[in-house]
């Protein structure tokens, strides 16, 4: 699970102020909001790439507000995917487990399992340069899931995909969420995507007159302020 308690993040000139919400274990949450409103800032704060000015961040009930990114058990797929250009697909899936010095046979088994779930077995020996958008997306997803994180953060994962690939990737994301029990926080501004995937929908809005960012919960969503 992920829980933000009155989290404030300064990002350059603007402020993501006093945000609170909770995503339960195995829940699929979709965070919506206009472009540039601070959705990515929230994801970066959760995975530890941006410092939280005040408030508390809990992952699996542990306070990780000041923890290093690698100690948070968070898988992150940024919007540009940021694949490692010098590594093969297999090395992407092995990367986090090698860092954790896991045994070779365990790494091999996990890579096989992930490649099968994501449908990228045939891509394993290839480099990442010539991969299509959908293939790259699945490799980035596999890399983020490889070490069995409790939380998966996805930043507009479907925005660069064509309609067919988007549909297939959408199914894959839901399947991964259900099979692994990982809590997902998925950022998008696409309403259809949110309706198809979300157990929980959150919306980041700028609230006049102070123009503070607030979370709104459309419909039947459990969100705290």
């Amino acid at each position, binding site marked *: 699970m992920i829980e933000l308690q009155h989290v404030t993040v300064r990002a350059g000139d603007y402020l993501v102020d006093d945000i609170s919400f909770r995503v339960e274990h195995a829940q699929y949450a979709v965070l919506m909001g206009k472009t540039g409103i601070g959705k990515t800032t929230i994801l*970066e704060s959760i*995975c*530890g*790439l941006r410092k939280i000015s005040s408030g508390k961040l809990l992952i699996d009930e542990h306070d990780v507000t000041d923890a*290093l*990114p*690698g100690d*948070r058990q*968070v*898988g*992150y797929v*940024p919007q*540009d995917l*940021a*694949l*490692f*250009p*010098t590594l093969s697909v297999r090395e992407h899936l092995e*990367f*986090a487990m090698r*860092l*954790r010095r896991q045994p070779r046979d365990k790494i091999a088994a996990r890579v096989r399992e992930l490649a099968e779930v994501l449908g990228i077995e045939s891509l394993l020996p290839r480099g990442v340069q010539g991969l299509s958008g959908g293939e790259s997306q699945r490799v980035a997803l596999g*890399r*983020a899931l*490889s*070490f069995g994180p409790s939380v998966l953060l996805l930043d507009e994962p479907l925005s660069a995909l064509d309609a067919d690939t988007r549909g297939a990737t959408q199914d894959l994301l839901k399947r991964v969420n259900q099979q692994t029990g990982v809590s997902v926080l998925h950022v998008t501004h696409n309403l259809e995507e949110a309706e198809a995937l979300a157990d929980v929908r959150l919306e980041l809005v700028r609230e006049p007159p102070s123009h503070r960012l607030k979370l709104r919960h459309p419909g039947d969503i459990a969100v705290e302020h």
Partner: protein
Amino acid sequence: MLFFLIMGGLSACFILLIILLLAADLLFTSFGEFREALLKPEIQAAFRLTLLTCTIAAILSLWVATPLGYLLSRYRFPGRWLIDTLVDIPIVLPPLVLGLSLLILFHLPMGDWKLESWLRDDLHFPVTYRWPAVVLAQFSVACAFAVRTMRVTFDQINPRAEDVARTLGCTRAQAFLQIALPQAWRGMITAATIAWARALGEFGPILVFAGATRFRTEVLSTTVFLELSVGELDAAVAVSLLMVAMAVVVLLFLRWFGTGLTT
């Protein structure tokens, strides 16, 4: 049409100047004179010392330029602008002033202590007017160019990949070593090559800080000066042509590694 005539004409002036310079050198000397000059033992010693010192200066430059270029590219920290400016000082400083500054630094008395005396007496590693002074004089300028190259290299590498690596469990050092550095190898080769070429052309600081003693601190750039000063114009031109050839090899090497110069 007029546009291309004017633009092409102006560009041709510079290209023509370079071609004429090289042609004049080639016409001035014959192959026999060239061979005779290069067989002189003092010129061969200078050639060997040039290769050695340029290579050491290039390797040292790369060791410093890679972390410094990375820090300047990736992090915003207090005094960053100052460091950024300081790095460029050896590039803009008049060469003789740089040599003089090195000489003063090594011989400036600080109480009873002098850097040169300490290196010579305690570490048994004298620098001034020895070959290490040649390396240091070359390094001072070459490193500045290498830092610029490495900074641009890291600017062109997406930092998000290092961010993602950190979420996967990397420390900052691991993200640098395992993700950024393997992507920077072309830039590192370019930086080393540029540093080597800069070191080859260095003259003023070497003359002031290392002197121009035959068989001891003489490198090819000082050979040209020494041969000219004793009226051996043929030998000076022969050594100049040798340096031109070395510079061309470096340029071809740079292009071969696809640094954008080919396009």
